[in-house]
């Protein structure tokens, strides 16, 4: 490998702590000019935090940053990173939907001003789009909010490669292909290769391992805020990579939590026909944890809401047998009562049972609160503390405890692990499994393939319908991903169902 002076970026001993969570524990990373580098790892492994440090939106607690052989640690921020030619395409889109495509280009380029800037901006973004995604069909004057998600992603990627007064040296692509179609993804991957030929480095963050192996030079694996492996992509196989990421161990553990699939003799609790039709119905029995997978916004949440509405005389196509509780992962917006204590946040779901003669009994309230503190292990000395004194993960425990406590037969979990740290996540899944073993029926919607390992069965959604049902034993990340884009195995168990539809 080349010496440090030839490197484009050298990160040394980067550490970052958020409260009690150590997001980065001394990461060293070198990026060479014209290199396509992959960074892989689980959600929560520290990839995003590291990238935020690299693009200057997050200052590390300790560590050094050098770009093109110069130490830039002092005063490193977004503007400096941009001036040095470091750009990022974010996972959650960072275009302004109210602005036109060329206006969004202007937002990125501070130097794009003065007479005739709209013309220059249009020309820049058209050229970049034409080069990266030939046949894209995007108008530079279109309002971004009117574009589809895939088109927006194309615009954002093209924008990152436009050059005005500042060079492009390194572009970070965070899950760039997840919302692009197959063709556009292919175009992008081919383009990064051409860009590398011109000396532009790319960092690829992706969960699609095959993509990573085929299209990158070097792979860096992160786990628990550290770099645990660096390999040349050519020396790796998918299996090796998965092993490095530590997936295997988890999978074995999760599988062992349930010896056999759900017994067919248990009563069916939920039977739903997703709104967009399709041939596969969602069926969940008592004692089961059923996963709803697929890309975000493909009908999973609608299906959960359908299940939630069904006992109250909801729409047709949904049959739900039993009482229902809903837990949202969007804690601040539809989860916690921010001004209330932890205990009150648990007991709100069962006030009738805690009241004596029309009045709430404080003793019963605090007894229930303490009971659940022990059962889901909320990290607090006192349930009377305000809910916001807890970390996000522990707040989520409280919300799940609320759902457990109200005694519903069916639990609808809507991306409940959002922003929950790994350890707490594990505890929560144990709690969920315990409830299922006690006869509850759990529907779990998650966008993180990792979490699906805790389910007995998984339904994959695509465009509002279910494309595939995958049993625990047959679950692989690859299969879920393919089904998320509407591609199913013809050898799969539901090929018969598709023949009916044809």
């Amino acid at each position, binding site marked *: 490998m080349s010496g440090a002076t030839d490197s484009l970026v050298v990160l040394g001993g980067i550490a970052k702590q958020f409260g009690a969570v150590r997001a980065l524990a001394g990461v060293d990373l070198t990026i060479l000019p014209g290199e396509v580098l992959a960074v892989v790892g689980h959600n929560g492994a520290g990839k995003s935090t590291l990238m935020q440090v690299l693009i200057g939106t997050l200052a590390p607690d300790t560590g050094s940053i050098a770009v093109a052989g110069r130490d830039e640690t002092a005063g490193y921020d*977004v503007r400096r990173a941009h001036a040095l030619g470091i750009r990022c395409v974010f996972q959650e889109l960072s275009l302004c939907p*109210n602005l036109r495509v060329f206006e969004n280009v202007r937002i990125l380029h501070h130097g794009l001003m003065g007479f005739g800037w709209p013309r220059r901006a249009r020309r820049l973004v058209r050229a970049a789009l034409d080069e990266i995604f030939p046949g894209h069909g995007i108008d530079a004057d279109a309002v971004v909010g009117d574009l589809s998600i895939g088109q927006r992603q194309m615009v954002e990627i093209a924008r990152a490669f436009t050059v005005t007064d500042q060079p492009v040296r390194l572009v970070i692509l965070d899950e760039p292909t997840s919302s692009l179609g197959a063709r556009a993804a292919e175009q992008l991957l081919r383009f990064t290769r051409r860009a590398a030929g011109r000396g532009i480095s790319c960092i690829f963050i992706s969960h699609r391992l095959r993509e990573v192996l085929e299209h990158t030079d070097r792979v860096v694996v992160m786990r628990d805020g550290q770099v645990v492996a660096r390999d040349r992509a050519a020396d790796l196989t998918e299996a090796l990579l998965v092993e490095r990421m530590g997936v295997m161990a988890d999978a074995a553990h999760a599988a062992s939590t349930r010896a056999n699939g759900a017994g067919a003799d248990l009563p069916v609790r939920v039977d739903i026909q997703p709104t967009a039709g399709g041939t596969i119905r969602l069926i969940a029995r008592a004692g089961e944890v059923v996963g709803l997978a697929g890309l975000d916004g493909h009908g999973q949440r609608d299906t959960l809401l359908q299940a939630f509405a069904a006992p109250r005389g909801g729409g047709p196509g949904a049959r739900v047998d039993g009482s229902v509780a809903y837990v949202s992962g969007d804690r601040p917006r539809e989860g916690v009562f921010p001004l209330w204590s932890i205990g009150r946040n648990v007991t709100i779901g069962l006030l009738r049972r805690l009241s004596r003669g029309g009045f709430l009994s404080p003793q019963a309230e605090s007894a229930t609160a303490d009971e659940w503190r022990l059962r889901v292990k909320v990290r607090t000395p006192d349930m009377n503390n305000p809910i916001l004194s807890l970390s996000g993960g522990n707040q989520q425990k409280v919300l799940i405890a609320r759902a457990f406590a109200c005694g519903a037969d069916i639990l609808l979990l809507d991306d409940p692990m959002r922003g929950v740290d790994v350890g707490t996540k594990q505890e929560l899944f144990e709690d969920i499994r315990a409830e299922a073993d006690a006869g509850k029926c759990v529907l779990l919607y998650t966008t993180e393939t990792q979490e699906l390992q805790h389910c007995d069965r998984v339904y994959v959604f695509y465009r509002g319908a279910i494309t595939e049902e995958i049993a625990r034993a047959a679950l692989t990340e690859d299969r879920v991903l393919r089904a998320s*884009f509407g591609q199913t195995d013809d050898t799969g168990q539901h090929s018969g169902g598709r023949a009916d539809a044809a």
Partner: protein
Amino acid sequence: MQREVASAGGAPASDADPVPRRRFSGRVLLPAAALAVMLAAIFVLQPRAMSYNGMRLLLGFSLPLMFAAMAQMCVIAASDIDLGLGTYIGLVNSLSALLLADRPLLGVLSLVGCVLAYAGMGAFIEARRLPSIVVTLGASFVWLGLALLVLPTPGGASPAWLSALVRLKPPLVPLSIVVAVLLALVGHWLFMRSSYGVVLRGIGSTPQAVRRAGWSLLTARTVLYGLAGVFGLIAGLVLTGLNTTGDANFGAPYTLLSISAVIVGGGEFFGGIVAPVGAVIGAFIMLLTGSLLSFMDVSTDWQLSVQGAILILVLGTRAFRRRRA
């Protein structure tokens, strides 16, 4: 099956609509058409209004309202709302009537102070991450209190140059129309054409994206509120010129009228979606409802209710259309 996947392009919803609609021109066309219909109705009911002097009388008080609408639009561009604009205009009205004629230097200084206070309010909202609705509502009482302090009872006088200015009679077209066209052009250039205007609208929809691109949100919001302060200042001065006197309570109606004008003119409460040309048109629409009603022999007591109904109607139709889209 395979072909369908290939052409899907990862775009779930709107592949069927490859040519994006031009939402913004539609935004301005609709209120413009509404204004044309209103004017036509007025001319039919009262043909004498269709003259130079008729138009002058009809549109006389559009001047303060269009500047108020532009001020309100600056704040709405940041997805904020300004509930203190009316009393601010009242404060400017009081200060200018009391000081500008007799003690011009002090008058100018106090008015500059007003604009700086407005810009400071924007900085404060951004720095402390406070809801604008609370801060501007609080500020509205401060403006009113200050206005009553300097001018406890209506009085003072407009400086001669100011009264003369708002009574200018340009050839062919009345002053208010000339000013409206100029204001619409300036607003359009400022927000829709200038390169910094893009940033100003950007913070109204996705502030974190703008921040990540290295812009200061503090500067942007300060600039927006500062602009609001300048347009509000002009509204207050014009009001002084038209009324030739000061009154702390003169400005009050302009808060809700300006918000209505922005929304009726095609702006949205959230998302940085504003239309400067539309805001000026909206100001005329809000003003002319009153005239139209009186020409139809409806009591002016109904004017406020009708203006409110228009606002609800516009918002309702928009929500309905969005649901269908």
